C-alpha cells in the first residue's frame, strides 16, 4: 500500500480551484489558463496554472489544507 493524496469530493466540482504552494500557483482539479484583464499599468495577459502534482498535494495536506485528503492505493505488487 502507498499513501496518495487527492481533492475531497466536495471540492472537485470547482474547475479552476487553485492555491499557492512554495511560491507557485497551482490548480487542484485541472490545469487552466486565466486571462488577466488589462489595467492602467499592464496589458491583458494569459496565465497558465499547472495542475498540482502528488508532491504538491502531499505538501498541502501536511499544511492542513481542508481540500486535500489522504488515501491508500494498492501497489501493483500488492494486487498480484
Amino acid at each position: 500500500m502507498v499513501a496518495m493524496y487527492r481533492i475531497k469530493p466536495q471540492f472537485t466540482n470547482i474547475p479552476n480551484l487553485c492555491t499557492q504552494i512554495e511560491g507557485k500557483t497551482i490548480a487542484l482539479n485541472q490545469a487552466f489558463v486565466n486571462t488577466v484583464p488589462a489595467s492602467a499599468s499592464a496589458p491583458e495577459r494569459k496565465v497558465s496554472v499547472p495542475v498540482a502534482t502528488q508532491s504538491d498535494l502531499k505538501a498541502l495536506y501536511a499544511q492542513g489544507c481542508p481540500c486535500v485528503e489522504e488515501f491508500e492505493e494498492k501497489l501493483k505488487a500488492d494486487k498480484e
Partner: protein
Amino acid sequence: MACAIAALNSTSGCPDNEGGLQYSYACKLTDITAITTSSGVITNFTMSTTGLWKKLVYNLDETSYFNQQGERTNETGALKYQQEALLKFGGMSSAYKAFADDIADCCKLVFVHVLTNGSRVIQGLEIDSAAVGGFTGTKVRDTLVVPSQMGGTAAEESRLEILIRGKGKKLAPFTTITDTAIEAL
C-alpha cells in the same frame, strides 16, 4: 475556545504600535473556497479561480483605519465585535463611481488589510474548523461597504470614502500570506 489567561506585557520589546493601514486586498467571500491555518493564523487561501483578489491603494494621509469595537449585550450577554474600516481615495471620477457601484452590490466581502506596522489582518472572515473550507463570513452581520462620494467645496478635497462594516463573534484573524502570493493567486 476554553477559558484561559496568558501573560501579556506591552512594555517589553518595544512593540510597533503605529496605527492605520497601508493598503488592502479585497474579494468576495464566495471567491474563497478554503483556508489553511496554523496556530490560529491563516497561512494560505484556496480560491475558486485566480485573479480574484484586487489591490486597493488609497490615500496615505492618516485617515484609513480598521477598528474592532467589542460589545456585550446587557454587560454579561454574548460578546460581539463591530468591525469597521475606512478607506479614502482622493478625487472624483467616473472610474470611482463604477468601482463604488460594483462593490456596493456585493453582500459578503473579505478584505486583507496591511497595517502600517506590517501585520496583515482579515476583515469579513472567521475561522471555523467545523465549516466547509474551514471558515465562514462574519457570523453576526455580513461584511459589506457603504461608499460615499464627497465632492466638497473648492477649499476641500473631493474623495471617495469606502466604509466597510460587519460584525463578528471573534476578533479578525491575522494572515501570513505575502503580497506576492496574494497577487499570484
